[in-house]
Protein backbone atom coordinates (compact mmCIF):
# COMPACT_ATOMS: atom_id res chain seq x y z
CA UNK A 1 0.00 0.00 0.00
CA UNK A 2 1.28 3.45 -0.89
CA UNK A 3 2.13 5.51 2.19
CA UNK A 4 -0.09 8.52 2.86
CA UNK A 5 1.27 11.99 3.50
CA UNK A 6 0.90 12.23 7.29
CA UNK A 7 0.53 15.32 9.39
CA UNK A 8 2.13 14.90 12.83
CA UNK A 9 1.45 17.65 15.34
CA UNK A 10 1.68 18.17 19.10
CA UNK A 11 -1.65 18.14 20.92
CA UNK A 12 -0.83 19.90 24.17
CA UNK A 13 2.20 18.78 26.14
CA UNK A 14 1.30 15.13 26.53
CA UNK A 15 -0.25 14.04 23.27
CA UNK A 16 0.55 13.80 19.58
CA UNK A 17 -1.99 13.87 16.77
CA UNK A 18 -1.28 11.96 13.58
CA UNK A 19 -3.63 12.80 10.72
CA UNK A 20 -4.30 11.22 7.34
CA UNK A 21 -6.08 13.06 4.50
CA UNK A 22 -9.43 14.31 5.74
CA UNK A 23 -11.93 11.96 4.07
CA UNK A 24 -14.04 9.02 5.17
CA UNK A 25 -12.29 6.22 3.35
CA UNK A 26 -11.93 2.52 4.17
CA UNK A 27 -8.37 2.43 2.78
CA UNK A 28 -7.31 5.25 5.09
CA UNK A 29 -8.91 3.54 8.08
CA UNK A 30 -7.07 0.36 7.11
CA UNK A 31 -3.73 2.20 7.00
CA UNK A 32 -4.42 3.82 10.40
CA UNK A 33 -5.22 0.45 11.94
CA UNK A 34 -2.05 -1.13 10.51
CA UNK A 35 0.03 1.67 12.00
CA UNK A 36 -1.90 1.41 15.27
CA UNK A 37 -1.14 -2.30 15.50
CA UNK A 38 2.51 -1.84 14.57
CA UNK A 39 2.95 0.82 17.27
CA UNK A 40 1.05 -1.19 19.85
CA UNK A 41 2.90 -4.45 19.35
CA UNK A 42 6.34 -3.35 18.23
CA UNK A 43 7.15 0.21 19.29
CA UNK A 44 5.09 1.43 22.23
CA UNK A 45 4.38 -1.66 24.28
CA UNK A 46 4.14 -0.89 28.02
CA UNK A 47 5.36 2.65 27.64
CA UNK A 48 2.36 4.51 29.06
CA UNK A 49 1.14 5.50 25.61
CA UNK A 50 -2.54 5.20 24.86
CA UNK A 51 -3.84 5.44 21.28
CA UNK A 52 -7.22 6.53 19.96
CA UNK A 53 -8.00 5.84 16.29
CA UNK A 54 -10.92 7.65 14.61
CA UNK A 55 -11.81 8.26 10.94
CA UNK A 56 -8.62 9.92 9.65
CA UNK A 57 -6.59 10.29 12.83
CA UNK A 58 -4.60 8.45 15.44
CA UNK A 59 -4.09 10.32 18.70
CA UNK A 60 -1.28 9.18 20.97
CA UNK A 61 -1.53 10.21 24.61
CA UNK A 62 1.26 9.87 27.12
CA UNK A 63 -0.39 9.26 30.49
CA UNK A 64 2.63 9.64 32.73
CA UNK A 65 5.02 12.27 31.43
CA UNK A 66 5.56 15.22 29.13
CA UNK A 67 6.45 14.47 25.53
CA UNK A 68 9.60 15.50 23.69
CA UNK A 69 7.70 16.22 20.51
CA UNK A 70 10.61 16.73 18.11
CA UNK A 71 12.26 13.49 19.04
CA UNK A 72 9.03 11.51 19.18
CA UNK A 73 7.63 12.75 15.87
CA UNK A 74 10.86 11.75 14.12
CA UNK A 75 10.45 8.26 15.58
CA UNK A 76 6.83 8.13 14.42
CA UNK A 77 7.88 8.95 10.87
CA UNK A 78 10.47 6.22 10.96
CA UNK A 79 7.98 3.70 12.38
CA UNK A 80 5.39 4.61 9.78
CA UNK A 81 7.92 3.90 7.03
CA UNK A 82 8.84 0.58 8.65
CA UNK A 83 5.32 -0.67 9.22
CA UNK A 84 4.60 -1.83 5.65
CA UNK A 85 3.48 -5.44 5.60
CA UNK A 86 1.80 -5.21 9.00
CA UNK A 87 -1.76 -6.43 8.85
CA UNK A 88 -4.46 -5.11 11.17
CA UNK A 89 -5.84 -7.26 13.95
CA UNK A 90 -8.52 -9.82 13.06
CA UNK A 91 -11.72 -7.96 12.36
CA UNK A 92 -15.27 -9.14 12.91
CA UNK A 93 -18.72 -8.53 11.52
CA UNK A 94 -21.11 -8.25 14.45
CA UNK A 95 -24.78 -9.01 13.85
CA UNK A 96 -26.96 -7.01 16.20
CA UNK A 97 -30.70 -7.62 16.72
CA UNK A 98 -32.98 -4.59 16.49
CA UNK A 99 -36.67 -4.41 17.24
CA UNK A 100 -38.22 -1.85 14.89
CA UNK A 101 -41.56 -1.97 16.72
CA UNK A 102 -43.23 1.46 16.81
CA UNK A 103 -43.00 1.41 20.62
CA UNK A 104 -39.23 1.69 20.21
CA UNK A 105 -39.04 3.33 16.80
CA UNK A 106 -40.66 6.50 18.01
CA UNK A 107 -39.54 8.48 14.96
CA UNK A 108 -40.17 5.73 12.39
CA UNK A 109 -43.41 7.20 11.10
CA UNK A 110 -41.93 10.69 10.84
CA UNK A 111 -38.84 9.26 9.12
CA UNK A 112 -41.08 7.36 6.73
CA UNK A 113 -42.77 10.63 5.75
CA UNK A 114 -39.51 12.56 5.37
CA UNK A 115 -37.63 9.84 3.50
CA UNK A 116 -40.63 8.92 1.31
CA UNK A 117 -40.14 5.28 2.18
CA UNK A 118 -42.57 2.95 3.89
CA UNK A 119 -41.65 1.68 7.36
CA UNK A 120 -40.90 -1.83 6.02
CA UNK A 121 -38.67 -0.25 3.34
CA UNK A 122 -36.70 1.67 5.96
CA UNK A 123 -36.21 -1.53 7.97
CA UNK A 124 -35.27 -3.45 4.84
CA UNK A 125 -32.63 -0.90 3.83
CA UNK A 126 -31.28 -0.35 7.34
CA UNK A 127 -30.71 -4.10 7.79
CA UNK A 128 -29.43 -4.76 4.26
CA UNK A 129 -26.30 -2.64 4.63
CA UNK A 130 -23.09 -3.42 6.44
CA UNK A 131 -21.60 -0.55 8.41
CA UNK A 132 -17.95 0.10 9.23
CA UNK A 133 -16.94 1.26 12.71
CA UNK A 134 -14.86 4.43 12.13
CA UNK A 135 -14.52 5.35 15.75
CA UNK A 136 -15.72 4.65 19.28
CA UNK A 137 -16.30 7.60 21.57
CA UNK A 138 -18.71 10.29 22.74
CA UNK A 139 -20.07 7.77 25.27
CA UNK A 140 -18.49 4.47 26.39
CA UNK A 141 -19.17 1.96 23.61
CA UNK A 142 -20.77 4.46 21.20
CA UNK A 143 -19.84 3.48 17.64
CA UNK A 144 -19.47 5.95 14.80
CA UNK A 145 -20.77 3.91 11.87
CA UNK A 146 -20.09 4.72 8.23
CA UNK A 147 -21.78 3.34 5.14
CA UNK A 148 -25.38 4.48 5.57
CA UNK A 149 -27.19 4.46 2.19
CA UNK A 150 -28.11 7.94 0.95
CA UNK A 151 -31.77 6.95 0.89
CA UNK A 152 -31.72 6.85 4.72
CA UNK A 153 -30.03 10.21 5.26
CA UNK A 154 -32.25 12.35 7.41
CA UNK A 155 -31.49 15.56 9.31
CA UNK A 156 -31.16 15.49 13.05
CA UNK A 157 -34.21 16.51 15.10
CA UNK A 158 -34.43 20.26 15.56
CA UNK A 159 -34.88 19.93 19.29
CA UNK A 160 -32.89 17.16 20.88
CA UNK A 161 -34.72 14.89 23.33
CA UNK A 162 -33.62 15.17 26.94
CA UNK A 163 -33.79 11.40 27.27
CA UNK A 164 -33.12 8.79 24.62
CA UNK A 165 -33.42 5.20 25.83
CA UNK A 166 -30.45 2.89 26.24
CA UNK A 167 -30.16 0.74 23.12
CA UNK A 168 -32.03 3.23 20.92
CA UNK A 169 -31.05 2.92 17.26
CA UNK A 170 -30.97 6.22 15.42
CA UNK A 171 -30.43 7.96 12.12
CA UNK A 172 -28.78 11.38 11.75
CA UNK A 173 -27.25 12.73 8.57
CA UNK A 174 -24.77 10.24 7.18
CA UNK A 175 -24.70 8.32 10.46
CA UNK A 176 -26.53 5.52 12.15
CA UNK A 177 -25.81 4.09 15.56
CA UNK A 178 -26.90 2.85 18.95
CA UNK A 179 -27.10 4.87 22.17
CA UNK A 180 -25.14 2.69 24.62
CA UNK A 181 -26.79 4.32 27.62
CA UNK A 182 -29.70 6.61 28.34
CA UNK A 183 -28.65 10.11 27.33
CA UNK A 184 -29.90 13.28 25.69
CA UNK A 185 -29.80 13.11 21.91
CA UNK A 186 -31.05 14.53 18.64
CA UNK A 187 -31.08 11.47 16.41
CA UNK A 188 -34.23 10.06 14.79
CA UNK A 189 -34.99 6.88 16.72
CA UNK A 190 -36.11 3.94 14.58
CA UNK A 191 -35.68 0.95 16.88
CA UNK A 192 -33.95 -0.55 19.88
CA UNK A 193 -31.19 -3.10 20.28
CA UNK A 194 -31.78 -5.26 23.39
CA UNK A 195 -28.16 -6.35 23.86
CA UNK A 196 -25.13 -4.30 24.74
CA UNK A 197 -21.69 -4.38 23.16
CA UNK A 198 -20.28 -2.56 26.20
CA UNK A 199 -20.00 -3.87 29.74
CA UNK A 200 -17.68 -2.11 32.17
CA UNK A 201 -17.59 -5.22 34.38
CA UNK A 202 -15.65 -7.19 31.75
CA UNK A 203 -11.87 -6.99 31.39
CA UNK A 204 -12.42 -6.24 27.74
CA UNK A 205 -15.40 -3.95 28.22
CA UNK A 206 -16.21 -3.37 24.57
CA UNK A 207 -16.71 -6.29 22.15
CA UNK A 208 -16.34 -4.13 19.07
CA UNK A 209 -13.13 -2.43 17.89
CA UNK A 210 -12.58 0.35 15.39
CA UNK A 211 -12.41 -1.27 11.94
CA UNK A 212 -15.03 -3.93 12.72
CA UNK A 213 -18.33 -4.10 10.86
CA UNK A 214 -21.91 -4.03 12.09
CA UNK A 215 -25.05 -5.42 10.52
CA UNK A 216 -28.50 -5.10 12.05
CA UNK A 217 -31.27 -7.67 11.72
CA UNK A 218 -34.93 -7.22 12.53
CA UNK A 219 -36.51 -9.07 15.45
CA UNK A 220 -40.05 -9.24 16.84
CA UNK A 221 -41.17 -7.77 20.13
CA UNK A 222 -41.21 -11.24 21.73
CA UNK A 223 -37.65 -11.92 20.60
CA UNK A 224 -36.67 -8.51 21.92
CA UNK A 225 -38.00 -9.31 25.38
CA UNK A 226 -36.22 -12.66 25.37
CA UNK A 227 -32.85 -11.25 24.22
CA UNK A 228 -33.14 -8.43 26.73
CA UNK A 229 -33.38 -10.91 29.59
CA UNK A 230 -30.67 -13.13 28.09
CA UNK A 231 -28.44 -10.07 27.82
CA UNK A 232 -29.09 -9.03 31.40
CA UNK A 233 -28.22 -12.40 32.85
CA UNK A 234 -25.23 -12.69 30.56
CA UNK A 235 -26.18 -15.67 28.39
CA UNK A 236 -26.87 -13.87 25.12
CA UNK A 237 -24.00 -14.35 22.71
CA UNK A 238 -23.79 -11.73 20.00
CA UNK A 239 -23.20 -13.36 16.64
CA UNK A 240 -19.85 -12.54 15.06
CA UNK A 241 -18.21 -13.56 11.82
CA UNK A 242 -14.53 -13.28 10.96
CA UNK A 243 -13.81 -10.81 8.19
CA UNK A 244 -11.08 -11.89 5.83
CA UNK A 245 -8.35 -9.29 5.47
Amino acid at each position, binding site marked *: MKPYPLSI*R*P*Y*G*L*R*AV*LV*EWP*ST*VDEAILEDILCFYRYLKTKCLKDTGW*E*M*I*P*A*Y*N*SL*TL*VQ*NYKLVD*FKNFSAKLKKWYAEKSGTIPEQRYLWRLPVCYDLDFGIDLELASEKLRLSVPEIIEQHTAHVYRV*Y*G*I*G*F*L*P*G*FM*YLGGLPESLEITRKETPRLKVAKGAVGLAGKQTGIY*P*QESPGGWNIIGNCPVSI*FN*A*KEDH*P*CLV*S*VGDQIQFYSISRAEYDLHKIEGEVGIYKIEKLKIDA
Partner: protein
Amino acid sequence: MLKLLKSGFYTSVQDRGRFGYRDKGVPVSGAMDNQAFETANALLENDENDAVLEITMTGPTFEFEKNTFIVLTGASMSVTLNNSPVDNYKVLKIVPGDILSYGRLENGFRSYLAIKNGFKTEKVLGSRSQTKSITDSTYLRDRSTIRYEPCDTFVPKIPEIKINPYFDKEILEVAKGPEFEMLENRQLEKVFGSNFSVSKENNRMAYQLKETIAGHNRSMLTSATLPGTVQLTPAGKLIVLMKDGQTTGGYPRILQLTEDAISILAQKKLGDVISFRLIAP
Protein backbone atom coordinates in the same frame (compact mmCIF):
# COMPACT_ATOMS: atom_id res chain seq x y z
CA MET B 1 -15.40 2.11 57.52
CA LEU B 2 -16.13 5.74 56.88
CA LYS B 3 -19.81 6.56 57.26
CA LEU B 4 -21.39 9.38 55.30
CA LEU B 5 -23.90 10.87 57.69
CA LYS B 6 -24.64 13.47 55.01
CA SER B 7 -23.25 13.31 51.50
CA GLY B 8 -23.10 16.99 50.52
CA PHE B 9 -23.70 18.41 47.05
CA TYR B 10 -21.52 16.04 45.04
CA THR B 11 -18.94 13.79 46.66
CA SER B 12 -17.21 11.04 44.71
CA VAL B 13 -14.31 8.62 45.02
CA GLN B 14 -11.44 9.50 42.67
CA ASP B 15 -7.93 8.26 41.98
CA ARG B 16 -5.57 9.27 39.15
CA GLY B 17 -7.99 7.98 36.57
CA ARG B 18 -8.84 5.13 34.28
CA PHE B 19 -6.25 4.69 31.58
CA GLY B 20 -6.18 2.39 28.58
CA TYR B 21 -9.83 2.39 27.49
CA ARG B 22 -10.18 5.69 25.64
CA ASP B 23 -10.33 3.84 22.33
CA LYS B 24 -13.58 2.32 23.65
CA GLY B 25 -15.01 5.68 24.62
CA VAL B 26 -14.29 5.38 28.35
CA PRO B 27 -13.44 8.78 29.88
CA VAL B 28 -10.26 9.10 31.91
CA SER B 29 -11.95 10.45 35.06
CA GLY B 30 -9.81 10.92 38.16
CA ALA B 31 -9.39 13.90 40.49
CA MET B 32 -10.30 17.17 38.76
CA ASP B 33 -7.63 19.10 40.68
CA ASN B 34 -4.61 16.88 40.26
CA GLN B 35 -2.36 19.18 42.30
CA ALA B 36 -4.56 18.95 45.39
CA PHE B 37 -4.92 15.21 44.87
CA GLU B 38 -1.18 14.59 44.59
CA THR B 39 -0.31 16.76 47.56
CA ALA B 40 -2.86 15.01 49.76
CA ASN B 41 -1.46 11.56 48.98
CA ALA B 42 2.12 12.82 49.28
CA LEU B 43 1.61 14.17 52.82
CA LEU B 44 0.23 10.79 53.88
CA GLU B 45 3.12 9.05 52.06
CA ASN B 46 0.52 7.09 50.15
CA ASP B 47 0.81 5.44 46.77
CA GLU B 48 0.36 8.15 44.14
CA ASN B 49 -2.76 6.41 42.82
CA ASP B 50 -4.54 5.93 46.18
CA ALA B 51 -8.21 6.89 46.09
CA VAL B 52 -9.48 10.02 47.81
CA LEU B 53 -12.87 11.71 48.14
CA GLU B 54 -13.54 14.70 45.92
CA ILE B 55 -15.98 17.01 47.68
CA THR B 56 -17.69 19.61 45.53
CA MET B 57 -19.08 22.94 46.74
CA THR B 58 -20.78 22.00 49.96
CA GLY B 59 -20.16 19.78 52.77
CA PRO B 60 -20.73 16.29 53.76
CA THR B 61 -20.46 14.98 57.31
CA PHE B 62 -18.45 11.85 57.99
CA GLU B 63 -18.01 9.52 60.91
CA PHE B 64 -14.87 7.40 61.19
CA GLU B 65 -15.05 3.93 62.72
CA LYS B 66 -11.33 3.07 62.91
CA ASN B 67 -8.02 4.74 63.72
CA THR B 68 -6.36 6.41 60.79
CA PHE B 69 -4.75 9.60 59.49
CA ILE B 70 -6.22 12.01 56.98
CA VAL B 71 -5.28 15.11 54.99
CA LEU B 72 -7.61 17.74 53.51
CA THR B 73 -6.50 19.70 50.45
CA GLY B 74 -7.95 21.91 47.73
CA ALA B 75 -10.89 24.21 48.44
CA SER B 76 -11.41 25.55 51.97
CA MET B 77 -14.80 24.55 53.36
CA SER B 78 -14.68 25.54 57.07
CA VAL B 79 -14.12 21.98 58.16
CA THR B 80 -14.43 20.89 61.78
CA LEU B 81 -13.28 17.72 63.51
CA ASN B 82 -15.56 17.08 66.50
CA ASN B 83 -16.62 20.72 66.28
CA SER B 84 -13.06 22.16 66.36
CA PRO B 85 -11.82 23.88 63.20
CA VAL B 86 -9.07 22.04 61.28
CA ASP B 87 -6.61 23.23 58.64
CA ASN B 88 -6.06 22.02 55.12
CA TYR B 89 -2.69 20.55 54.10
CA LYS B 90 -2.05 19.06 57.54
CA VAL B 91 -1.91 15.43 58.65
CA LEU B 92 -4.73 14.81 61.18
CA LYS B 93 -5.01 11.85 63.51
CA ILE B 94 -8.42 10.18 63.59
CA VAL B 95 -9.86 7.91 66.30
CA PRO B 96 -13.09 5.87 66.21
CA GLY B 97 -16.19 8.02 66.54
CA ASP B 98 -14.57 11.19 65.17
CA ILE B 99 -16.96 13.38 63.20
CA LEU B 100 -15.60 15.42 60.29
CA SER B 101 -17.99 18.07 59.12
CA TYR B 102 -17.73 20.39 56.11
CA GLY B 103 -19.27 23.84 56.36
CA ARG B 104 -19.36 26.96 54.23
CA LEU B 105 -17.27 27.19 51.05
CA GLU B 106 -14.55 29.83 51.61
CA ASN B 107 -12.52 29.58 48.43
CA GLY B 108 -12.06 27.19 45.54
CA PHE B 109 -14.76 24.67 44.59
CA ARG B 110 -13.40 21.15 45.15
CA SER B 111 -11.93 19.82 48.35
CA TYR B 112 -10.08 16.52 48.75
CA LEU B 113 -10.13 14.12 51.68
CA ALA B 114 -7.26 11.65 51.54
CA ILE B 115 -6.83 8.82 54.03
CA LYS B 116 -3.78 6.76 55.00
CA ASN B 117 -3.40 4.00 52.34
CA GLY B 118 -6.41 5.21 50.38
CA PHE B 119 -10.10 4.31 50.24
CA LYS B 120 -10.66 0.69 49.26
CA THR B 121 -13.69 0.74 47.00
CA GLU B 122 -14.10 -1.72 44.14
CA LYS B 123 -11.93 -1.12 41.08
CA VAL B 124 -13.61 -1.06 37.68
CA LEU B 125 -11.31 -1.24 34.65
CA GLY B 126 -8.31 -0.63 36.86
CA SER B 127 -9.59 2.45 38.65
CA ARG B 128 -11.77 3.42 41.60
CA SER B 129 -12.82 6.73 40.04
CA GLN B 130 -16.61 7.01 40.00
CA THR B 131 -18.13 8.02 36.69
CA LYS B 132 -21.39 7.57 34.85
CA SER B 133 -22.05 4.20 33.18
CA ILE B 134 -18.72 2.71 34.29
CA THR B 135 -19.08 2.44 38.07
CA ASP B 136 -22.35 1.36 39.71
CA SER B 137 -22.89 4.78 41.21
CA THR B 138 -21.64 8.17 40.09
CA TYR B 139 -21.38 9.80 43.50
CA LEU B 140 -21.79 8.90 47.16
CA ARG B 141 -25.20 8.95 48.76
CA ASP B 142 -26.31 9.70 52.33
CA ARG B 143 -25.57 6.91 54.76
CA SER B 144 -23.26 5.05 52.41
CA THR B 145 -20.08 3.58 53.84
CA ILE B 146 -16.59 3.40 52.39
CA ARG B 147 -13.94 0.95 53.44
CA TYR B 148 -10.46 1.91 54.60
CA GLU B 149 -7.74 -0.03 56.35
CA PRO B 150 -7.15 1.10 59.93
CA CYS B 151 -3.77 2.63 60.77
CA ASP B 152 -2.71 3.11 64.39
CA THR B 153 0.65 4.78 64.06
CA PHE B 154 2.15 7.01 61.44
CA VAL B 155 4.86 9.61 61.87
CA PRO B 156 4.70 11.84 58.80
CA LYS B 157 7.96 13.21 57.41
CA ILE B 158 6.14 16.46 56.69
CA PRO B 159 3.21 16.97 59.07
CA GLU B 160 1.97 20.18 57.46
CA ILE B 161 2.70 22.49 54.53
CA LYS B 162 1.70 25.98 53.52
CA ILE B 163 0.70 26.30 49.90
CA ASN B 164 0.05 29.29 47.74
CA PRO B 165 -3.60 29.02 46.89
CA TYR B 166 -2.96 28.48 43.18
CA PHE B 167 -6.66 28.33 42.57
CA ASP B 168 -6.98 32.06 43.19
CA LYS B 169 -5.09 32.44 39.90
CA GLU B 170 -7.20 33.53 36.98
CA ILE B 171 -4.76 32.87 34.16
CA LEU B 172 -4.91 29.45 32.53
CA GLU B 173 -1.82 28.41 30.59
CA VAL B 174 -2.67 26.77 27.30
CA ALA B 175 -0.91 25.22 24.34
CA LYS B 176 -2.24 25.45 20.79
CA GLY B 177 -4.90 22.86 20.05
CA PRO B 178 -4.93 20.86 16.79
CA GLU B 179 -7.30 23.31 15.04
CA PHE B 180 -5.71 26.46 16.49
CA GLU B 181 -4.65 27.66 13.04
CA MET B 182 -8.27 28.11 11.95
CA LEU B 183 -8.67 31.06 14.31
CA GLU B 184 -8.88 34.44 12.61
CA ASN B 185 -7.38 37.58 14.06
CA ARG B 186 -10.63 38.83 15.54
CA GLN B 187 -11.12 35.47 17.27
CA LEU B 188 -7.52 35.39 18.55
CA GLU B 189 -7.88 38.90 19.96
CA LYS B 190 -10.95 37.86 21.86
CA VAL B 191 -9.51 34.54 23.09
CA PHE B 192 -6.30 36.04 24.45
CA GLY B 193 -7.37 39.63 25.04
CA SER B 194 -10.47 39.25 27.16
CA ASN B 195 -11.79 37.57 30.25
CA PHE B 196 -14.22 34.68 30.30
CA SER B 197 -16.48 33.53 33.08
CA VAL B 198 -17.68 30.09 34.11
CA SER B 199 -21.29 29.46 33.05
CA LYS B 200 -23.77 27.38 35.01
CA GLU B 201 -23.00 24.46 32.71
CA ASN B 202 -19.98 23.30 34.64
CA ASN B 203 -19.35 19.82 35.98
CA ARG B 204 -16.85 16.99 35.89
CA MET B 205 -17.47 16.49 32.16
CA ALA B 206 -16.98 20.04 30.92
CA TYR B 207 -16.92 23.73 31.77
CA GLN B 208 -18.80 25.89 29.32
CA LEU B 209 -17.72 29.54 29.28
CA LYS B 210 -20.32 32.28 29.27
CA GLU B 211 -18.80 34.76 26.83
CA THR B 212 -18.69 33.78 23.18
CA ILE B 213 -16.29 34.64 20.36
CA ALA B 214 -17.10 34.84 16.64
CA GLY B 215 -18.42 31.51 15.38
CA HIS B 216 -17.31 29.44 12.41
CA ASN B 217 -18.58 26.92 9.90
CA ARG B 218 -15.60 24.62 9.84
CA SER B 219 -16.60 20.98 9.87
CA MET B 220 -14.19 18.23 10.76
CA LEU B 221 -14.20 14.50 11.14
CA THR B 222 -14.66 13.25 14.69
CA SER B 223 -11.31 12.87 16.41
CA ALA B 224 -9.91 12.34 19.92
CA THR B 225 -10.39 14.90 22.68
CA LEU B 226 -8.56 15.12 26.01
CA PRO B 227 -9.24 16.56 29.45
CA GLY B 228 -8.32 20.24 29.09
CA THR B 229 -9.24 20.47 25.41
CA VAL B 230 -11.03 23.74 24.57
CA GLN B 231 -13.62 23.17 21.84
CA LEU B 232 -15.13 25.97 19.77
CA THR B 233 -18.76 25.42 18.74
CA PRO B 234 -20.12 26.84 15.46
CA ALA B 235 -22.01 29.44 17.52
CA GLY B 236 -18.75 30.63 19.11
CA LYS B 237 -19.08 29.02 22.54
CA LEU B 238 -15.97 27.74 24.28
CA ILE B 239 -16.26 24.36 26.01
CA VAL B 240 -13.41 23.14 28.18
CA LEU B 241 -13.53 19.37 28.52
CA MET B 242 -12.68 18.08 31.98
CA LYS B 243 -11.83 14.69 33.51
CA ASP B 244 -15.13 12.91 32.76
CA GLY B 245 -15.22 14.50 29.30
CA GLN B 246 -16.02 12.57 26.15
CA THR B 247 -13.05 10.89 24.45
CA THR B 248 -13.92 12.04 20.93
CA GLY B 249 -15.63 15.05 19.47
CA GLY B 250 -16.42 16.87 16.27
CA TYR B 251 -15.85 20.50 17.28
CA PRO B 252 -12.54 22.19 16.49
CA ARG B 253 -10.05 21.86 19.36
CA ILE B 254 -8.51 25.31 19.54
CA LEU B 255 -6.59 25.19 22.83
CA GLN B 256 -5.21 22.62 25.23
CA LEU B 257 -4.90 23.44 28.93
CA THR B 258 -1.81 22.31 30.81
CA GLU B 259 -2.37 19.86 33.69
CA ASP B 260 -1.89 22.73 36.17
CA ALA B 261 -4.42 24.88 34.31
CA ILE B 262 -6.97 22.04 34.59
CA SER B 263 -6.34 22.02 38.36
CA ILE B 264 -6.95 25.77 38.53
CA LEU B 265 -10.13 25.59 36.46
CA ALA B 266 -11.39 22.68 38.59
CA GLN B 267 -11.46 25.13 41.51
CA LYS B 268 -13.66 27.65 39.65
CA LYS B 269 -17.40 27.92 39.99
CA LEU B 270 -20.27 29.75 38.32
CA GLY B 271 -19.32 33.37 37.61
CA ASP B 272 -15.60 33.02 38.34
CA VAL B 273 -13.35 34.78 35.84
CA ILE B 274 -10.51 33.24 33.83
CA SER B 275 -8.29 34.20 30.93
CA PHE B 276 -5.99 32.26 28.62
CA ARG B 277 -2.25 32.67 28.11
CA LEU B 278 -0.46 30.85 25.34
CA ILE B 279 2.74 29.11 26.39
CA ALA B 280 5.72 28.63 24.11
CA PRO B 281 5.50 25.35 22.21
